[in-house]
């Protein structure tokens, strides 16, 4: 890769993400836009590359953008599928742009192998938090009884980790039985149907539900509501969407995990941008600053109100140059 060449002058800032139909990504985008505004540019200055779950489109769009801007790009991206990460960063590096990634990346791929152009990768270690939510769930259940789990798209990293977290927690709870765990593909409708089928299959053996994210949680809640079981069977979710937080406050959800997508969206763009503009030189940073975990905040009925006040009612203004403060340390494999 060699020494970083003269940095870019006002590169195009772009965010490439899955879709707009999901509150999580909307939060990410809002962060990205907040960052762009912090540079004194209008929201609209942020370029959106939406792949609708298609790695093919994701890659094609990025290449097209690089071609259009001649490599003068600061790109923040979730590559949608881990394998898609390599060709993307290779393409960006080849055209001397700058990219920061979140979530999906294969383990054999590292920013430092690309000099300065692959600025950073942030992911969230869902193992720990998912384990914690599980423990909260088990406590609520009195440490025994059957549970069911509904996961995300089976091959997605977060889906795998969140399931693993649940399994880890179970090691300490011999009386908890995992009745079944099925992938609900992050989809509310699917989750709803799977949950109601679970109710048929296990009837009142089900004492608790572990959901891989909030959208799944909504489906499960409604399936329970239909049977008049909401509030009777405790559930835990993940992501900490505003609506989920409200449900935690209402006590419908026992716990969810806030990964601060707003900050994540902003800071990922910021990393790419400030590296591109030469504000800092990635290759001078320690590995811990190039592959790191994002922040996670556990939300339970006790602290939900306070949390809402602090993070949601008025979105805090972040210092987009404090790249690593809120982070959670280097990624370990």
């Amino acid at each position, binding site marked *: 890769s060699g020494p970083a060449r003269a940095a870019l002058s006002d590169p195009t800032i772009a965010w490439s993400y899955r879709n707009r139909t999901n*509150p999580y990504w909307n939060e990410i985008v809002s962060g990205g836009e907040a960052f762009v505004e912090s540079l004194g540019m209008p929201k609209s200055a942020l370029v959106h590359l939406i792949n609708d779950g298609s790695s093919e489109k994701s890659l094609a769009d990025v290449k097209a953008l690089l071609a259009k801007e001649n490599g003068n790009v600061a790109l923040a991206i979730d590559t949608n599928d881990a394998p898609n990460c390599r060709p993307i960063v290779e393409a960006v590096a080849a055209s001397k742009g700058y990219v920061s990634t979140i979530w999906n990346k294969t383990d054999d791929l590292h920013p430092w192998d690309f000099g300065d152009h692959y600025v950073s990768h942030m992911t969230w270690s869902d193992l720990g938090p998912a384990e914690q939510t599980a423990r909260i769930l088990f406590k609520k259940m009195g440490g025994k009884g059957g549970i069911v789990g509904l996961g995300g798209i089976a091959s997605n990293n977060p889906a795998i980790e969140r399931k693993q977290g649940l399994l880890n927690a179970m090691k300490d709870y011999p009386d908890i039985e995992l009745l*079944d765990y099925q992938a609900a593909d992050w*989809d509310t409708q699917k989750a709803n149907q799977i949950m109601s089928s679970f109710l*048929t299959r296990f009837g009142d053996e089900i004492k608790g539900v572990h959901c891989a994210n909030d959208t799944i949680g909504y489906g499960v809640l409604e399936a329970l509501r239909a049977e008049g079981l909401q509030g009777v069977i405790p559930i835990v979710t993940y992501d900490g969407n505003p609506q989920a937080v409200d449900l935690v406050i209402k006590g419908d959800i026992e716990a969810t995990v806030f990964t601060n997508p707003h900050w994540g969206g902003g800071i990922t763009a910021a990393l790419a941008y400030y590296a591109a503009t030469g504000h800092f030189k990635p290759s001078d940073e320690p590995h811990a600053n190039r592959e790191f975990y994002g922040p996670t905040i556990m939300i339970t009925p006790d602290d939900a109100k306070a949390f809402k006040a602090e993070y949601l009612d008025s979105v805090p203004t972040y210092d987009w140059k404090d790249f690593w403060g809120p982070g959670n340390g280097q990624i370990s494999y």
Partner: protein
Amino acid sequence: MSQVMSRENLQKWAPVLVLIALILFFSIANPNFMSVRNFARIAMAATPALMISIGITFIIIMGSIDLSMEGAVAVCAVVFATLFLSLGGALDSWAWVALPATLVVGACFGLVNGLVHVKLKIPSFMASLSMGFVGIGLSLLMTGGDRIRVEDPLFRSLLTERVLNFPLMVYFAGLALLVAWFIQSRTRIGRNFYAVGGGEELAHASGLNVNRVRVLGFMIAGAFYALGALFAVARIGIAETATGYNLMFISITSVVVGGTALWGGTGGVWNSLVGVLIVNVIANGMIVIGLPRYVQDGVLGVLVILAVYLSTDRKSLAFVK
């Protein structure tokens, strides 16, 4: 002769037999399956899908196809939620207007769909596929990607209130089914669908305004998509762009599994009811008997092929496309 009759009859009733066979199979595999509560759950899951399938049935009878339902449902769901909330968000206030308004929106969406199809002479497959994108886009534009919660207890009572163990929405769906049946068998437009499906050129040559029938067909379908959207929102309590996802292929599959031929002219809404039930029984049953997720797609596929295989009268078919 009589034995020919019985063969035809068997073919005609094959979907029902398949449905019964499936129910028996799953019940044996897991007795819990055979319970009113579970049937209620299947019914709930099937309600929105049934509305969509009824809508597409009319189109398929005409020998056309409609792939716009995902977009249509998204638009209807979002429009409903927005209107409902802006009108007070309680069914016992003026907000009830949102219900009929949504049906109108659905019909209008169908109208545009139909006009694009007949006026621009674009095959329905493409026209509706494109309109699907437009619909998704519209709902996205309206919500900016956020989801809208509809929590009015009266409206949600469609899900929460039960009569004879079945939630209200199931009965309303049944009502809609009867209406659809009436349209199909008693009304002029309904019969014209069959005429167009049986021989479009001939129908035109004998003075039928085929394009008008077409457009009306898509409007009626649109209205039923709107109903589907309403039930979907009632079931989940959320209106969003994703409300319509995964409805396209499954609803068309249901229609065909029910015994309505894709080349038009035959079948009807009762077939679609059976088809929808078959598909939902399979979906529910596979989980109830504890099939791992990764085999479910395959199993569904095989069962669908089997069902269609049994219910098609191959002797009378020269070929299928």
